[in-house]
């Protein structure tokens, strides 16, 4: 990524000059891919992250104590090419999908993606979206289909948006991501009754 585009971006952001992004150009923003809080939550933390145009996000996943069975966690863009999900990334952007993050040579599982198009990117874990394992990346200025309300694609026959996923996405307003750079995983919003599904 050239300096020019960054200058352009800063100029466009206007007041944003004062809130220079902490994410360097060379280094990537890191999102932790978590297994579980004691309450059984699977998460991306931070749930919302800002990067400059052309920046990189790296998702990291660590087994605890070298032991752990595969969870099939993935980093997958909301895009019709990915299991018919609604489009929630810029129309010109290529859909990304890590596939199941199962192979760990070093104990750490990583996935990196370079974001070449400005706008709002929503992504999910293929096997855990039903319990709210989703996240948002804002690249430069927010915009595009990701700004539509979660679930808008259902009328076009796209896969339904799980309520817990909508809760997390709604807790990550793009403008707030731009201002704060990161929004931590809002773990208190999707707590399930314990034990879930038990009738007494």
């Amino acid at each position: 990524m050239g300096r020019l585009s960054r200058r352009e971006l800063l100029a466009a952001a206007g007041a944003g000059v004062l809130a220079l992004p902490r994410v360097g150009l060379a280094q990537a923003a890191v999102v932790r891919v978590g297994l579980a809080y004691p309450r059984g939550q699977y998460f991306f933390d931070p749930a919302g992250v800002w990067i400059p145009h052309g920046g990189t996000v790296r998702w990291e996943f660590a087994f605890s104590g070298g032991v752990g069975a595969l969870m099939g966690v993935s980093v997958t863009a909301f895009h019709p090419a990915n299991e018919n999900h609604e489009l929630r990334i810029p129309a010109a952007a290529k859909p990304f999908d890590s596939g199941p993050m199962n192979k760990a040579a070093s104990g750490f599982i990583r996935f990196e993606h370079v974001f070449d198009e400005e706008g709002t990117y929503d992504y999910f874990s293929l096997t855990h979206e039903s319990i709210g394992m989703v996240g948002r990346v804002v690249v430069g200025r927010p915009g595009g289909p990701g700004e539509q309300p979660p679930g808008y694609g259902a009328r076009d026959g796209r896969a339904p948006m799980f309520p817990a996923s909508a809760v997390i996405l709604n807790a990550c307003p793009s403008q707030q991501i731009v201002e704060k750079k990161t929004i931590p995983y809002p773990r208190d919003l999707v707590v399930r009754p314990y034990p879930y599904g038990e009738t007494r």
Partner: protein
Amino acid sequence: MTHVSRRSFLETGGRAAAIGALAGVWRPSVVGAAAVPAAGAADWTRFGYDLHNTRFNRNEKTLGPREVARLKPKWTFDTIDGWPIQSTPTVIGDTLFFGAGGHYYSLDSASGRMNWSFDTGIGGEWLANWLLPGTRSSAHYHEGRIYFGTGLCNVHCLDAANGREIWKTAIESRKEMMASMMFSPVVYNGNVVVGYSGSMAEIVCMHAETGAVRWRFRVVKDVPEKYQTGGASMWTSAAIDEQQNAVFNVTGNAKAFSGPTLYANSLIAHDIDTGELLWAYQAHPQDIHDLDFCAHPMVFDAVSPQRSRGDVRRCVGAGNKANFVCLNRHTGEMFWKASLNAPSANSGPLICATAVAYNRVYIQTANPTSRPTLGLSAALNAYTGDVEWLTANEGLQASPIAVANGVMYQGLVNPAKIQALDAETGQQLWEYDMRSAVRGGMTIANGALYASNGEGGGWQGQKTPYPHSIHCFTVDGK
């Protein structure tokens, strides 16, 4: 040959001398260097004692409430590789089978001397990890053969007489799937049924003669197979209902949540010959809280407290970390559910701490989240689930219990003890301090108690200053 005469003969004479002397009397092809064990009066043939997984030795008549106070150690046998013991010994007459670490063993049940040991191939890097390797599977003895699984997710069929392998089947050998078999096989009608734990659990039925797989049931079908996940680990053993030709299994929680996660956290009934799913009961859909079924399914008939004519419930019951459920074994409909603990990932009747006898369900439950932590032993009415007696233990527990002749036998983790309780009242009759946490199952067979010492959950393969052993207790140690 009669069983009694052979046993008494072996007890009086040395084993080698006996076999040498008998070789000329009996058919050499059968006896040879080592004979198939002759059945005893009150054998313990598999993990759950019988096909119903009752863990109740109904044939035991020697050890009773009056005798247990005189239980004394008779012999101990230390594992070769120093590994803790988590399995339940199988006892057939004069022979005891058990597995731990990298070996499966055959011992003389009267003296503790080793007949043979079998190297399961577990070693090297596998030994560096507590959860995956080792052997927690208990052997099922059937017609001169034993069947067991290992931490490498292999199932072995051995000649019980000499430990020679008849067949071995690798159920899931892809290392990244972290498959491990703590499950104890059940052998019925030419079938061997196993389950395993790991990324993606399956119930597998094999041909008992050859080990060839007859059918597989991948538990969490909601999760596409390409994701190599799903969870629903199986930790225990299966139970059989001969009338329905059904096999019952219980599963742990799911690891991925693409749908309702059927059939994770469930009690499942299959036709054993065809693998047809008969019914399933899911205790917790989409369970993200790790409330596995960690106690074995048990098949039993429960009689109404009113003793109304014909009022018998045909039950299958099993404990998960939130409660114990008792279902109609023909339909899966619920009869009753009882909870003696707050649900948590470490609560409930851990590691198969249940048994069924005398129209009662015997259960230990762990309450690690209470202050102070609370371990309970209780007897529930098998028909209603009502508590008949309940007693607090000195600590928590995580080992399979056993019931025989009016006595319930149990192990504690900390303090490390084995105890005998009156099965009618819960009153403690006897206890014995063990070297380390009791994790293996209690076995009562032919007038002896067989127990073992293992390690708690924090053990990571370190050397211990004491051995891990099978302990045999008899009246006055005789």
